[in-house]
């Protein structure tokens, strides 16, 4: 078995047997490993998959979900559907009424009526593409089969538009709008690299990543394993009530589709959910949120470079 593209998402399972953790690829159970801890077993499985498939960037999506450390201030968690499919947009400047910002390349204004045109590189069931090849706003697209997994009431919360692809038979839809949308938040005491564009006012989303970015109260709770902590958080105060089974997070037009943990458990591994890597998005109480984290200007941060 040889793969030509790395970074495939493998749906995996795990169980505890005695004091050992066993993990395996669900559709290829011969690809399995074990360890004294989940992390050790998972790392060993990476090696097994790499040796068997040549995919050294293999990604694991666990069903049941991987065990996690309980975090302070967290009441529940959403699951962000990470879109590992990849495409390039061939008509980026036509997609938004104000075109693209000349400084940061992000979309300006409302979405126009122009269909999203894509050159698909890796056609999973969920993918992303930037308006200017490697920079600017990132739009999400989903396969027709993925959309069929959503309930009618769930689909009705979002605006999906047909996509024109230059190759392949798969039919995709752009996630172009959402009526259940909540912002990502910065945690109190975090050290984040946030910037705002001098020209258009767009700002990058709060992302907690890297050894120094997490607040002490969180990294202490993770017992030093900062690299396993979630990157994105939402505030409990910002969530709609009652909580829908799926919603979007982030900032328009960069919608990221999220599910409740229970709803995601129904979708993981289904035909139509290929190429989705879930990410934990903890829901934190408002006292743990920094409502106004510091931001620097794009020009100070990037100079002439593009994010």
């Amino acid at each position, binding site marked *: 078995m040889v793969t030509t593209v*790395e*970074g495939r*998402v493998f749906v995996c399972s795990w169980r505890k047997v005695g004091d050992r953790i066993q993990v395996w690829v669900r559709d290829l159970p011969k690809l399995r490993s074990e360890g004294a801890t989940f992390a050790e077993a998972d790392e060993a499985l*990476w*090696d097994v998959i*790499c*040796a068997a498939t*040549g995919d*050294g*960037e*293999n*990604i*694991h999506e666990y069903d049941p979900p991987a065990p996690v450390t309980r975090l302070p201030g967290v009441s529940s968690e959403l699951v962000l559907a*990470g*879109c*590992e499919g*990849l495409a390039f947009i061939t008509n980026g400047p036509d997609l938004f009424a104000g075109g693209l910002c000349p400084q940061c390349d992000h979309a300006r204004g409302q979405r126009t009526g122009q269909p999203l045109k894509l050159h698909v590189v890796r056609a999973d069931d969920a993918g*992303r593409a930037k308006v200017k090849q*490697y920079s600017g706003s*990132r739009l999400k697209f989903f396969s027709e089969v993925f959309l069929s997994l959503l309930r009618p009431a769930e689909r009705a919360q979002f605006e999906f538009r047909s996509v024109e692809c230059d190759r392949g038979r798969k039919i995709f839809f752009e996630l172009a709008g959402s009526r259940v949308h909540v912002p990502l938040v910065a945690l109190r005491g975090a050290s984040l*690299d946030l*910037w705002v564009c001098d020209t258009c006012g767009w700002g*990058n*989303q709060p*992302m907690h*990543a*890297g*050894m*120094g970015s997490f607040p002490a109260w969180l990294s202490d709770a993770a017992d030093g394993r900062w*690299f396993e902590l979630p*990157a994105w958080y939402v505030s409990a105060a910002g969530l709609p009530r009652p909580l829908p089974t799926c919603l979007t997070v982030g900032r328009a037009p960069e919608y990221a589709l999220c599910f409740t943990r229970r709803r995601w458990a129904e979708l993981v591994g289904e035909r139509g959910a290929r190429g989705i*890597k879930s*990410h934990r998005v903890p829901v934190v109480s408002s006292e743990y949120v920094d409502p106004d984290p510091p931001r620097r200007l794009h020009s100070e*941060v*990037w100079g002439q*470079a*593009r*994010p």
Partner: protein
Amino acid sequence: MHFETAVDIHRQFHYYMSAILIATGLESPNRGEEFWEDRLQSPASRDALKRAMLRGADEFDRWCAGRARERLPGTGRGGIGSEVSLRLVLEDYFRQNGW
């Protein structure tokens, strides 16, 4: 360690990269491309990643030169394991992409 196939070299490359990324305060490369796209929205992250990758490349080049390259030219991804040093491959990539 035996390295009979290009896969062995490939695996070794990922061992170096994973170990060095985490050791230098970055995350495992296997958290998915969407994660890394967001991660690189920060120039500090990009610089840190660039430095870590070049350090990993040097380690890998040393390992290759000493152990694998003569026996196994290989056609690994991006020239990995071939006559070309990984540092040169990465430097070329960074130059082309404005890093």
